[in-house]
C-alpha cells in the first residue's frame, strides 16, 4: 500500500505517527506530494493524507487511515474510541480550523473543546483517552491538536491533565518523527500555506457559504418593534435631515465622521480583469457610495501605479518611452472604471512631482532617525548604457542547462532560479553589450527596528476594527516570522529619485513608494491633503485590496509612516478579498481566458449587471468563481424575476389602477408586520455594510423584494381593484406600501447598481433628499397623492445562446478541462517516492538539508546579499539536490511537478 503525505499538512501528523503500527504486517510506501495534488481519483477537491490500499481502494480520512494501521496491529474497535473520533471530526476539527485560521481568539473558540478533553482525562483518572495505554484516539487527537498546542503558550496551565497527556505523547518517538517530517522544524509556520488555502469557516455555525439565497425564516417581532416601525414610517420625509452641500474639495470636518477610502492602485501596464475589479475598485466603490448615503464625509481615491521595471520593459517592447506607456494605459484604466461607474473623487497616478516630494520627505525622516542603512551589493553593470542592470535587463546562457536566452532571474527552459552574475555570456537586454560585475550601494529599510512600534500600533488598531480575517492573519504571520530588512532601491530610471549622494542612478523600489501614491494622489487633488493624511484622530481610513497586497498596507507603509514620526493617518480597516476564479480556473491574459475590463463593455451586458453579479459572488471570506451560466441564472432569477418584477409591478399598479398617483394607505396589522420586517432587514443591511460585508448586504435587498413579491401575490390588488369599496381601499394600501418598498429598494440598491437605482428613482419621481440619504428606518417617502413618472421594465432576460457564445468567445470551460487533464497526468512525476525500508532516514536527512539550504538561498536573495556569497550557497544547494536524487534513485534532472489545485 502507498501512503501519500505532504509537508505542512496537519493531517499527516497522526497518520505518520500511526504508520509504525503496521510495520511487519504490511509494506507501506510513503510518497510525498504537494498539498494541492488530487491523489484520490474520485474526489474533486485535493485531499492529503491518503492511503492507497493494495485492493486499489483509497482511505482519504485521516482517522480512517490511523484506524486501519491500528486494526492491522490487532487492535479492536470499541465504543469509546469511536466516540472520541466522531467528536474529533465533528466538534474539534471545526473549532481548530477556526482558531488556526483566524489566529484570533485561539483559546476562546477551542477552549470548550480543550476543557472537554481535560475533564475526560482527569475524570476517568487514566493517562490516556481510552484506557491505560496509548491508542488510536490518543494519536488522532494528538495530531489534531499538535499545530495549536506545540506552542506551549496556547496551552492553558489549569488544564493540567491535558497538558501532561499532550507532553507524554509528544515525546514519544513515532510522534516526534511525524512532527519533524511534517513541520520541518518550522513549527506551526509550516502549516501556514496549507491553512491559508482552506476556506475560512463561516462565522455562524452551520451556515452554508453559498451563492444561493438562504431559506428566509421570518423573525418573530415584538409589539414594540412593530409600533416603532409604524411610527418611523408615519413621520415620512420629515425625518430626513437636510442634504449636505457638495464640497469641492472634500475635506475632513471636526466632529463629523470622516471616511477616507482607498482602492489598491492597479499597475498601469495591465488591463484589469474582473477579479481585479471586484477585489478593490468595485468593492471600495460600494462602500464609498454607502458612506455617502449615510451622509458621512467621504473621500474615495485611487490611481494607477506607474513606476517600476515592468513599465520600462513594456516601454522597450512597444517602442515607447515609459511616460508614453503610462499615459496610454492610464487612459485605458480610467475609461474602464468610468464604464463600470466607479465613483472616485480622484483617479490619479503615481508619476507626479507630489509623489517625489512626499516619498523623499518620508525617506529623509526615516534616514534622519536611523531607520535606513547602506550596504554594498555585487551587480552587473553595462558600461555602454552606463547603468547597473536590474535582473530583468540581463539575458545570457543558463549556467545549468545552457539555454541561450535565460533571464537574469530565472531560466525559462529549465525553470531554475539564477543569480544574474552567474549567467554565462551575459548581455545587456538594451544594447546587447557584455556587462561587467561591479559592486554598488543600495539602501535598506530597517523593518526589524520598527517592528515594536508596529506591534503597538496594531495592538491599538485591531481590536474592534473591521479588518477582514485574512488581512489579520497575513499580518500576524509576517510578524510571527519576524520582519527582515528590505532593500528599497533599484537600478532603474523610471521611478522616484533617491535624494542621496551616490544614488543619482537609482530610484526607490516600488513597494516602498507605491503606497505613498495614495498620499500624493490626494495632494494632487487638494493642497490641504495633510488634513486627510496627517489626521489620525479625525479620519477613518478604509483600504480595499486583494489579499496579496496586504503586507504592503499592513506592514510596510505603516512602518515607514511610524518611523517618519509625522502623525500620519494609518489604516483603520483593512478590507482584503480572496481570489475570484474564472469558470473554475484562473484568469489568464496569455491563454486568453477570462473577461477583462475593456471586454466587458463589448458583451452588450450593461455595467450594472456586471456590478451586480460581481458583487453577488464577491470573494468575501473565501475564493469564488465567475461562471457564465451562473451570471445568466442570477440575472434571470434574482434581477428579472425577483427585484425587477417587484419594482415594476408596484409602479405599474400605481399607473394603471390609480392614474399615476400613490393611493391612500390604511395599514392593517399584517401591513404593519410587513413594515417591521422590512425595517429589520434594512437594519441588517446597515449592520452588514458598516462591517463592509458587501456581498451579504446585497442579500438583504433581494430578501426585501422577495417579501414584497409575496405581499403582492397574497393580497392580489389586481383583483381587489375590481371589487367593493373596501376591496378597492385594500388594493390602494397594498399598492401604496409596495411602491414605497420599491422606493426604499432603489436607495439601498444605489451602492450596487447606481444606474438602475437612478432609473427607478426617475420612474417613481422620488423626492431628491430621499434619493441621497438612507436612514436606518423605513420611511414613507411616497405619500398618498404623490405623482410617479412613466414605469418601464428594468432588466432584460439573458438568453442561453447569447451566454454560450460569450463563453466561447472568452474561453474557459473546455479549455480549462484540457488544462486540468494535463495537470492530472503530470502528477505522476511529482511524486517523490521513498521506500521506508530503504534507508529512509538518510533520504529524510537529505530532504531536510535541501529545504534548509533552499531557505538560506532565498533569504540571501531577498536581502540582495553579496552575489558571490549567494552563488556559493546555490552551488551547495544544487549539490545536495543531486545527492538526494541519487539516493532516491531518480535521474537528477527530474522535473518538479506542477502543482495545480
Amino acid at each position: 500500500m502507498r501512503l501519500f503525505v505532504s509537508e505542512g499538512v496537519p493531517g499527516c501528523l497522526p497518520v505518520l505517527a500511526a504508520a509504525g503500527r503496521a510495520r511487519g504486517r504490511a509494506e507501506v510506501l510513503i510518497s510525498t506530494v504537494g498539498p494541492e495534488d488530487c491523489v484520490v481519483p474520485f474526489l474533486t477537491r485535493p485531499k492529503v493524507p491518503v492511503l492507497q490500499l493494495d485492493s486499489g481502494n483509497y482511505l482519504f480520512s485521516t482517522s480512517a487511515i490511523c484506524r486501519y494501521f491500528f486494526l492491522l496491529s490487532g487492535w479492536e474497535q470499541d465504543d469509546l474510541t469511536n466516540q472520541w473520533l466522531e467528536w474529533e471530526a465533528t466538534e474539534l476539527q471545526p473549532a481548530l480550523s477556526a482558531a488556526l485560521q483566524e489566529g484570533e481568539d485561539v483559546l476562546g473558540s477551542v477552549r470548550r473543546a480543550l476543557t472537554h478533553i481535560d475533564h475526560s482525562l482527569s475524570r476517568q483518572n487514566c493517562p490516556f483517552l481510552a484506557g491505560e495505554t496509548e491508542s488510536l484516539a490518543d494519536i488522532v487527537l494528538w495530531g489534531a491538536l499538535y499545530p495549536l498546542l506545540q506552542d506551549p503558550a496556547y496551552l492553558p496551565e489549569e488544564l493540567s491533565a491535558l497538558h501532561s497527556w499532550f507532553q507524554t505523547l509528544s515525546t514519544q518517538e513515532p510522534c516526534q518523527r511525524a512532527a519533524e517530517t511534517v513541520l520541518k522544524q518550522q513549527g506551526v509556520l509550516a502549516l501556514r500555506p496549507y491553512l491559508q488555502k482552506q476556506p475560512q469557516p463561516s462565522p455562524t455555525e452551520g451556515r452554508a457559504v453559498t451563492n444561493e439565497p438562504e431559506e428566509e425564516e421570518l423573525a418573530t417581532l415584538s409589539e414594540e418593534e412593530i409600533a416603532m416601525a409604524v411610527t418611523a414610517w408615519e413621520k415620512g420625509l420629515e425625518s430626513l435631515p437636510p442634504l449636505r452641500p457638495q464640497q469641492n474639495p472634500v475635506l475632513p470636518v471636526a466632529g463629523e465622521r470622516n471616511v477616507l477610502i482607498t482602492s489598491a492602485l492597479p499597475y498601469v501596464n495591465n488591463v484589469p480583469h474582473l477579479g481585479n475589479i471586484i477585489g478593490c475598485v468595485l468593492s471600495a466603490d460600494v462602500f464609498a457610495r454607502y458612506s455617502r448615503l449615510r451622509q458621512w464625509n467621504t473621500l474615495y481615491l485611487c490611481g494607477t501605479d506607474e513606476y517600476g521595471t515592468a513599465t520600462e520593459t513594456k516601454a522597450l517592447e512597444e517602442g515607447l518611452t515609459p511616460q508614453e506607456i503610462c499615459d496610454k494605459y492610464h487612459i485605458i484604466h480610467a475609461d474602464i472604471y468610468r464604464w463600470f461607474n466607479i465613483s472616485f473623487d480622484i483617479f490619479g497616478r503615481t508619476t507626479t512631482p507630489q509623489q517625489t516630494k512626499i516619498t523623499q520627505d518620508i525617506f529623509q525622516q526615516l534616514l534622519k532617525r536611523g531607520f535606513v542603512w547602506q550596504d554594498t551589493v555585487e551587480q552587473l553593470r553595462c558600461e555602454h548604457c552606463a547603468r547597473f542592470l536590474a535582473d530583468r535587463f540581463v539575458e545570457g546562457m543558463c549556467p545549468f542547462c545552457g539555454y541561450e536566452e535565460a533571464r537574469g532571474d530565472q531560466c525559462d527552459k529549465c525553470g531554475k532560479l539564477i543569480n544574474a552574475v552567474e549567467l554565462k555570456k551575459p548581455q545587456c537586454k538594451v544594447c546587447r553589450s557584455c556587462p561587467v560585475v561591479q559592486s554598488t550601494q543600495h539602501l535598506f529599510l530597517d523593518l526589524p527596528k520598527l517592528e515594536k512600534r508596529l506591534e503597538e500600533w496594531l495592538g491599538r488598531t485591531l481590536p474592534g476594527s473591521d479588518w477582514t480575517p485574512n488581512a489579520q492573519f497575513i499580518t500576524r504571520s509576517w510578524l510571527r516570522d519576524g520582519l527582515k530588512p528590505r532593500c528599497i532601491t533599484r537600478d532603474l530610471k523610471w521611478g522616484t529619485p533617491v535624494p542621496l549622494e551616490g544614488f543619482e542612478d537609482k530610484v526607490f523600489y516600488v513597494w516602498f513608494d507605491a503606497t505613498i501614491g495614495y498620499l500624493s494622489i490626494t495632494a494632487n487633488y487638494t493642497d490641504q491633503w495633510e488634513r486627510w493624511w496627517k489626521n489620525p484622530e479625525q479620519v477613518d481610513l478604509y483600504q480595499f485590496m486583494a489579499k496579496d497586497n496586504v503586507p504592503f498596507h499592513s506592514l510596510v507603509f505603516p512602518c515607514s509612516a511610524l518611523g517618519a514620526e509625522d502623525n500620519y493617518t494609518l489604516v483603520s480597516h483593512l478590507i482584503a478579498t480572496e481570489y475570484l476564479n474564472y469558470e473554475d480556473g484562473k484568469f489568464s491574459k496569455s491563454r486568453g481566458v477570462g473577461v477583462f475590463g475593456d471586454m466587458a463593455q463589448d458583451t452588450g451586458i450593461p455595467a450594472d449587471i456586471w456590478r451586480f453579479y460581481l458583487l453577488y459572488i464577491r470573494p468575501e471570506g473565501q475564493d469564488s468563481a465567475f461562471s457564465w451560466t451562473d451570471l445568466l441564472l442570477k440575472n434571470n432569477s434574482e434581477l428579472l424575476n425577483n427585484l425587477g418584477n417587484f419594482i415594476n409591478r408596484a409602479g405599474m399598479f400605481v399607473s394603471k389602477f390609480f392614474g399615476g398617483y400613490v393611493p391612500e394607505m390604511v395599514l392593517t396589522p399584517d401591513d404593519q408586520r410587513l413594515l417591521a420586517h422590512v425595517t429589520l432587514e434594512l437594519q441588517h443591511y446597515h449592520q452588514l455594510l458598516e462591517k463592509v460585508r458587501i456581498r451579504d448586504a446585497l442579500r438583504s435587498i433581494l430578501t426585501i423584494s422577495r417579501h414584497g413579491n409575496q405581499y403582492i401575490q397574497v393580497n392580489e390588488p389586481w383583483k381587489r381593484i375590481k371589487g367593493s369599496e373596501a376591496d378597492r381601499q385594500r388594493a390602494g394600501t397594498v399598492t401604496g406600501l409596495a411602491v414605497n418598498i420599491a422606493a426604499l429598494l432603489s436607495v439601498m440598491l444605489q451602492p450596487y447598481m447606481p444606474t438602475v437605482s437612478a432609473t427607478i428613482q426617475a420612474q417613481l419621481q422620488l423626492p431628491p433628499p430621499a434619493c441621497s440619504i438612507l436612514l436606518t428606518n423605513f420611511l414613507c417617502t411616497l405619500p398618498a397623492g404623490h405623482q410617479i413618472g412613466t414605469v418601464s421594465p428594468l432588466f432584460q432576460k439573458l438568453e442561453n445562446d447569447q451566454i454560450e457564445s460569450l463563453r466561447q468567445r472568452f474561453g474557459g470551460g473546455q479549455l480549462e478541462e484540457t488544462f486540468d487533464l494535463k495537470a492530472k497526468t503530470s502528477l505522476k512525476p511529482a511524486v517523490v517516492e521513498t521506500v521506508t525500508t530503504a534507508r529512509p532516514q538518510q533520504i529524510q536527512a537529505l530532504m531536510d538539508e535541501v529545504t534548509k539550504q533552499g531557505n538560506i538561498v532565498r533569504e540571501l536573495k531577498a536581502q540582495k546579499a553579496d552575489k558571490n556569497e549567494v552563488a556559493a550557497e546555490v552551488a551547495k544547494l544544487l549539490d545536495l539536490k543531486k545527492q538526494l536524487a541519487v539516493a532516491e534513485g531518480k535521474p537528477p534532472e527530474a522535473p518538479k511537478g506542477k502543482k495545480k489545485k
Partner: protein
Amino acid sequence: MAAAAELSLLEKSLGLSKGNKYSAQGERQIPVLQTNNGPSLTGLTTIAAHLVKQANKEYLLGSTAEEKAIVQQWLEYRVTQVDGHSSKNDIRTLLKDLNSYLEDKVYLTGYNFTLADILLYYGLHRFIANHDCFVYKKMRIVTGGPHVCL
C-alpha cells in the same frame, strides 16, 4: 430527519425490539444514548455502531481490517460532509464524488452491504426528497443496490 428518529429507524431495521430513548445535546442536537451497562454514548455514528453490535450484526461494520476502516471512513463522511454542507455547489460536488466512487461498486465497501450504506442513504435522503432532478439522477447508483428498501 432528526438523529433520534434516524436511530430508531435503524433499530427497527436491525431487528432490535426494545427501542431506546435518545436525548439531544447542544445546538446541533447531537444524539445521546444512555446505555444500561456503562457511560452514555454521544454521536450518531458512535451510537449506530453500538446498536449494530447489540444486534449481533457486527458484519455490518466490515469483516476485514480494510472493510472496517472503509466503513468508518464513510460514517465520518456522512456526519462531516453530508451533514455539514447545504449549499447547492457543495452538494453537487459531493454527489459527483460519490457517483464516481460508486461507479465500479455495488456498495461503499465494494460487495458487502454495511452500516455505512445505511447511514449514507439516510443522510442523502434529504437531498432526494427535494425532488431535484439533477440530484435524483446522480443518486441512481447509490440507491441502485438490492438492499435499499430499508
